[in-house]
């Protein structure tokens, strides 16, 4: 671990252990049939609130407005299923200008529709432009493994955890920058995530497909990486599909979960004592390219692994 002074830490995974165990979840996707979101097939829904928003610029400031009709429809479709939030536009790793308008929007969202936990990607997607205003770079990029990053993201994660009073998780990203630098003591992406979690007292959303992508593209053993992850801090696991393009395995989230990722799930799940749920993640854009039966098949397979490992869903606990 890097030589970063951390605030006194809660007892091992105190915040993780306090999270509710939900079961198997699925991304909220506007273009899919509403009857996919029903108890029995799903235990919870993962909402990306940006999908329910419109960005608006007021002079210098950007704000994100929840669109009442979209929110109303989402609530009607998800019914009584519990929800968790999975954001994509916070840019928690931007050296300056992380997206505070996202947090302002999330304040309003939480007041309307409380969630059990929320998560973001350990990435950045803005830099200062020539006018010093935030400039989108178009795709999320991974962070270098430095003490500065650990301090910056750790402090922001801690502030977020205090602000929403529900667990906050960081997701390990897929990326293609094999030569990204890591300071000694942090060493690699596993070390970086562990150091930030230590600093920020947050949990981890372990995206097994992203881990698999990086293992394939950067040439490391995904199972060995799992062994080094703070699994007591993992509260949610993502599984998803991807595909080959130009010699890289991409995190396209556009189809069925590949066999190696299922194997990773079988290996990892029993080792996560504080897991709250598994989500089959699918991108809105690709959702209609998968049949409802195929989606249901992936959810049932995740559910079968969940139950085989002695996990109970939220519905079973009630």
């Amino acid at each position: 671990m890097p030589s970063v002074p951390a605030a006194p830490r809660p007892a091992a995974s105190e915040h993780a252990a306090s999270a509710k165990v939900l079961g198997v979840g699925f991304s909220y996707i506007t273009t899919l049939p509403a009857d996919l979101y029903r108890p029995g097939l799903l235990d919870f829904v993962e909402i990306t609130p940006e999908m329910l928003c419109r960005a608006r610029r007021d002079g210098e400031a950007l704000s994100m407005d929840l669109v009442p009709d979209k929110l109303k429809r989402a609530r009607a479709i998800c019914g009584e299923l519990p929800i968790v939030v999975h954001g994509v536009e916070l840019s928690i790793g931007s050296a300056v200008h992380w997206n505070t308008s996202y947090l302002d929007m999330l304040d309003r969202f939480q007041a309307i529709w409380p969630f059990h936990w929320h998560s973001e990607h350990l990435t950045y997607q803005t830099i200062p432009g020539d006018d010093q205003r935030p400039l989108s770079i178009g795709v999320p990029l991974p962070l270098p493994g430095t003490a500065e990053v650990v301090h910056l993201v750790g402090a922001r994660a801690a502030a977020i955890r205090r602000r929403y009073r529900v667990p906050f998780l960081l997701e390990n990203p897929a990326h293609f920058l094999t030569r990204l630098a890591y300071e000694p003591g942090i060493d690699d992406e596993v070390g970086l995530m562990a150091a930030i979690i230590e600093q920020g007292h947050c949990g981890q959303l372990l995206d097994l497909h992203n881990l698999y992508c990086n293992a394939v593209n950067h040439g490391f053993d995904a199972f060995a990486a799992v062994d080094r992850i703070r699994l007591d801090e993992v509260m949610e696991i993502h599984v998803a599909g991807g595909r080959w393009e130009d010699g890289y395995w991409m995190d396209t989230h556009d189809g069925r979960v590949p066999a190696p990722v299922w194997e990773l799930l079988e290996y990892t799940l029993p080792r996560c004592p504080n897991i709250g749920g598994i989500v089959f993640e699918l991108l809105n854009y690709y959702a209609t390219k998968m049949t409802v039966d195929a989606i249901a098949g992936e959810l049932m397979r995740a559910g079968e692994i969940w139950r085989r490992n002695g996990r109970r869903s939220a519905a079973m606990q009630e």
Partner: protein
Amino acid sequence: MAAGALQCRNERAMSLLDHQIVLGRCLRAVDADPWVSLAGLQGIGLDRAELAELHDLVHSPGFRFTRRGQRSWCEGRSAEAAQLTLSMLSTEQRRQLVNDWVDAGGGAAFDPTSEADAFLEFVACRLSEASHAMTICRMEQAIYRASQAALRFKPPDLSLLDNPNTMLCAGTGAAMVRFFAEPQWLFAAIGAKAPLPPLSDRCFFVLFAPGLPALFRAATHEEAAVWAMLVDPIAMPLVSRGRDKRRTIEELFTIGAADLVPEGNVVSDPSPSSTHHYSA
């Protein structure tokens, strides 16, 4: 361009900000060699070893692949933001417009709608004024503006119009879109992928406003005439001569198609021919 060509200082360790500025700029660059985009960048506090490290990273196969992905995402988001307008154009026109927009830095925002207005304006500037494509482009832009404004729209107090000093302008979330054919015929042809109707000399105006239940409806000739007067700020007494005009203005004001000129936009004009000048 060699790594050392970028201005650098040796007294500081690599900062996250510098790292991100270099990678972010290189990611957005349209040049074949993204490092070129850093020429003239001032105040980067990276030493030569750090610059060499980033130079290697930027020229790695993984970064090249990331750039291709970024380009693809930007193109996809832009196309999504102007779906209907682009569907009116040839494949080559579509490709060229999206390409030019992304070359100019467009498509990078994660929410396509946040750039949609600007992209549609970019497209409109490259379309023939009297064309169905222009109509659809302005309509798509009007829908974005009206639906955005509708999120915060509250019907205004009509008594504000009674003040003789009231200045009016077009509502920011409103638009009057001219069609060159009966709108239903045009949409039917678009939907059926049939030949589009010929351009008519007759004007068919559709009004978009945040206070309308469906955000749009056919405009009356009176409304179109008043709207034309609101392109520049105008004093209420000048625009409302006649009882019918007053009613029309009240209707436009109620739905957000007409608005009061913000007080801060009024500036003194020394010209003797007018008492005030208003910036739109």
